[in-house]
């Protein structure tokens, strides 16, 4: 696909959303203006923006399918094809993101310009995601969750209860401010359960430890709580 096509796809989606869900139309329109107003960045920034747009468009299509549902039976049929983590993402978090103003949305622009959006822990998160899938858990990873909701990854295990995870290395562990910001962000988005997990990359087998703690807490951690955990 030519990269230029993504603008047309975004605009078509804005038009369609304006009939089905004006909240989505408004947010997509903001994204369109945001891309237009930000001075074009480096090749890395271009990759990020294209992937962000592609991810947002694909999520918006799923969202419009859900919003256009006409009966409970049909809703049930849709939900059977979603993992519990996807259901949480689309029906709770994305829904909240579309219906509220996002105070961090325009900070992304600054991050983009400063090249601060590259994830240094991308390989670690990919490895964790693979392990979780191998153990029959399910995950959702989204730029919006990462940049606006302080959530690196959303995980569900056997009990099918989604848990939002923020990972941080021990070097940042003692940053109380970082923890406070994280908790406030989760409360703002009405995220029910969150795990702030700090790890020590020099420890043997730390990926497995992260996966164990994540899967266990996804099943056992009570609702309405935020947990800080150090490995």
């Amino acid at each position: 696909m030519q990269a230029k096509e993504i603008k047309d796809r975004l605009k078509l989606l804005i038009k369609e959303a304006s009939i089905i869900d004006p909240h989505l139309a408004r947010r997509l329109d903001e994204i369109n203006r945001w891309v237009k107003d930000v001075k074009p960045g480096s090749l890395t920034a271009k990759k990020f923006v294209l992937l962000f747009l592609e991810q947002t468009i694909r999520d918006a299509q799923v969202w419009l399918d859900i919003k256009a549902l006409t009966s409970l039976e049909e809703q049930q049929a849709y939900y059977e094809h979603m993992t519990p983590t996807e259901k949480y993402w689309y029906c709770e978090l994305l829904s909240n993101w579309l219906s509220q103003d996002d105070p961090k949305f325009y900070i992304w622009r600054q991050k983009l310009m400063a090249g601060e959006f590259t994830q240094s822990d991308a390989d670690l998160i990919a490895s964790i995601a693979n392990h979780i899938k191998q153990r029959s858990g399910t995950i959702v990873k989204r730029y919006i969750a990462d940049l606006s909701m302080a959530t690196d990854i959303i995980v569900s295990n056997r009990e099918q209860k989604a848990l939002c995870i923020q990972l941080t290395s021990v070097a940042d562990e003692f940053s109380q401010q970082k923890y406070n910001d994280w908790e406030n962000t989760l409360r703002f988005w009405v995220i029910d359960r969150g795990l702030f997990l700090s790890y020590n990359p020099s420890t043997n087998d730390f990926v497995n430890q992260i996966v164990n703690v994540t899967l266990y807490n996804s099943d056992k951690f009570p609702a309405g709580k935020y947990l800080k955990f150090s490995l």
Partner: protein
Amino acid sequence: MVNKLQNDPRQRLEKFIQHIEEARKLQDDILQYGLAAAELYFEDVDGDWWETWGENEEEDKSFFESVIAFLGSDDSVALKVRKQLKDKSLPEIAAQFEKCFNLPEEEEQIFAVKTLLVDSVMVGGNNPDYSEDIDEIDEIDLLDLAEELVEKLTIVREKYD
């Protein structure tokens, strides 16, 4: 790629499954390849797509986008419409006006626009006694506004004929 409202629930479900699988595939590719995944989806990541994003905006604008631009402008008619439809977003209003403009006769268009303006008061009122609110609104003013709006949007649309 864009959703189309379909009447058959089976077709809708199939489309939904396709969309959710597309979202999963992208997630997996981003996890596996990081930002390099962009090259799997786009042939010309380093092309000028971003530089030209806002270019030719006027020429490329659809009628729908031109209506949004008009409604967001300082034009006195646009200001009145925004005041009247304050609970609705500009894309939402534009989509509804675009429907009105698909009607063949100007009189029908004016009537549809006026209905839209009146309905917004009834729906937005949340007041069981909204009929009293309606009484307070000068229906002639709304008809005038509808006529003025249709006139303005006709000028906007002439560019596309």
